[in-house]
């Protein structure tokens, strides 16, 4: 384990903003997207100009815009994290059953979620650590995980203790089975669903061989392995 930590410190980890830039780069123009609470909300700050992406919020909003200016907060217009937001022209309000039909019925193109662990087969664990004294809460995580056309995860690839969060089998309680398509991490992007996980966008100095070794799993190379300059 201490070896792993030493190995990891040899690379410059990508900032959370840079990870969000990568996610934004990969979202197609015209996509309907749900960004989960926490790190995924950063993606909204990096949507490239010229791309029109419609953000969905589980509490009944399509066309969600950025936070309002100080003093303009309207607490009838909040996101899933209960923070005040705005509505873009073309946006719409709807009730909860319709909102979740958009997820559960496969109408949302991409949801981006945080995770405690992702298994090699795409199982996702992100709703509970299973710690005995915590109050259990699930919100919309299970609906999003299995309902969106694609589920992407944003997370650090390793825990602070140096343990990989991409695991053969989830040890935390499952949110959804086989649902994760891509992992955007501080070290690379990993695409699941093929014979082998496919790695791309590796940080400088990181090679497929080293990544494979520290993750303890075979990996396939994507066409582009380098972290391209992002504008």
């Amino acid at each position, binding site marked *: 384990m201490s070896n792993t930590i030493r190995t990891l410190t040899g690379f410059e980890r990508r900032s959370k903003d840079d990870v969000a830039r990568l996610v934004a780069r990969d979202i197609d123009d015209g996509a309907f997207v749900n960004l989960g609470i926490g790190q995924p909300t950063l993606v909204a700050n990096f949507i490239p100009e010229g791309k029109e992406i419609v953000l969905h919020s589980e509490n009944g909003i399509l066309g969600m815009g950025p936070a309002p200016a100080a003093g303009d907060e309207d607490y009838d217009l*909040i996101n899933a*994290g209960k923070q005040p937001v705005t509505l873009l022209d073309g946006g719409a*309000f709807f*009730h*909860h059953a319709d909102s979740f039909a958009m997820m559960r019925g496969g109408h949302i193109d991409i949801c981006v979620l945080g995770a405690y662990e992702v298994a090699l087969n795409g199982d996702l664990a992100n709703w509970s650590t299973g710690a005995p004294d915590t109050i259990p809460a*699930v919100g919309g995580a299970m609906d999003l995980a299995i309902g969106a056309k694609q589920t992407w995860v944003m997370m650090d690839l390793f825990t602070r203790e140096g343990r990989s969060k991409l695991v053969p089998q989830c040890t935390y309680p499952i949110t959804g089975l086989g649902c994760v398509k891509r992992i955007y991490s501080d070290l690379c992007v990993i695409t699941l669903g093929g014979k082998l996980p496919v790695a791309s966008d590796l940080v400088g100095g990181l090679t497929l061989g080293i990544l494979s070794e520290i993750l303890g799993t075979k990996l396939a190379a994507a066409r582009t392995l380098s972290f391209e300059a992002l504008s």
Partner: protein
Amino acid sequence: MINKITESIEAALRGVTDGATVLIGGFGTAGIPEELVEGLIATSVRDLTIVTNNAGNGDTGLAALLKARRVERLICSFPRSADSYIFADLYRRGKIKLELVPQGNLAERIRAAGAGIGAFFTPTGYGTLLAEGKETREINGRRYVLEYPIHGDLALIKAERGDRWGNLVYRKAARNFGPVMATAARMTVATVYEVAALGEIDPEMVVTPGIFVNHVVRIPRKATRAGEFKAVA
């Protein structure tokens, strides 16, 4: 003549009994029918089952109802917030039952109740702790969990505007659970900030048709308020 405009919350809530299942609208700061929850506290009903998304905040509203030990069971998707300490304390001491439901299942089970559906299969939760012990089925190669409707004896919802037939419109994301809950209870009570004359609400804009509503009570308008909703582990 139909007149669902009711002069007081007290009058609207007459007839609520012990052991009732009460659906309460709201998500975060938006759409919580605070005045109706206070009205429920003012009655003496107890042993309630409360169906709502969050578990109350601070010491008011749902939190006050919980603190008064009037709730036997909470059916809820996200009971963990920084200031949901009254629920947290009761839960940790085993003084309240919790049925944790994925939010989409919560909405759909309520919708199913309102639509007369006996049960439905959904992929949400399959293979998770929240589906343990539930009937499952593979349909066209996909795996589903059987979920049952949630009927309410009473629904408490907050709308923006209503008329004497009970037609309602909402404001922004304060709509959330209101329209589905209104369909799923034997009695639905809505507060509004404005009472409109019949015909004044554009029929194309009606969100909840009056058939689903029993009482409309006008309350004084309040500014929207921030809440402390930072999630804690």
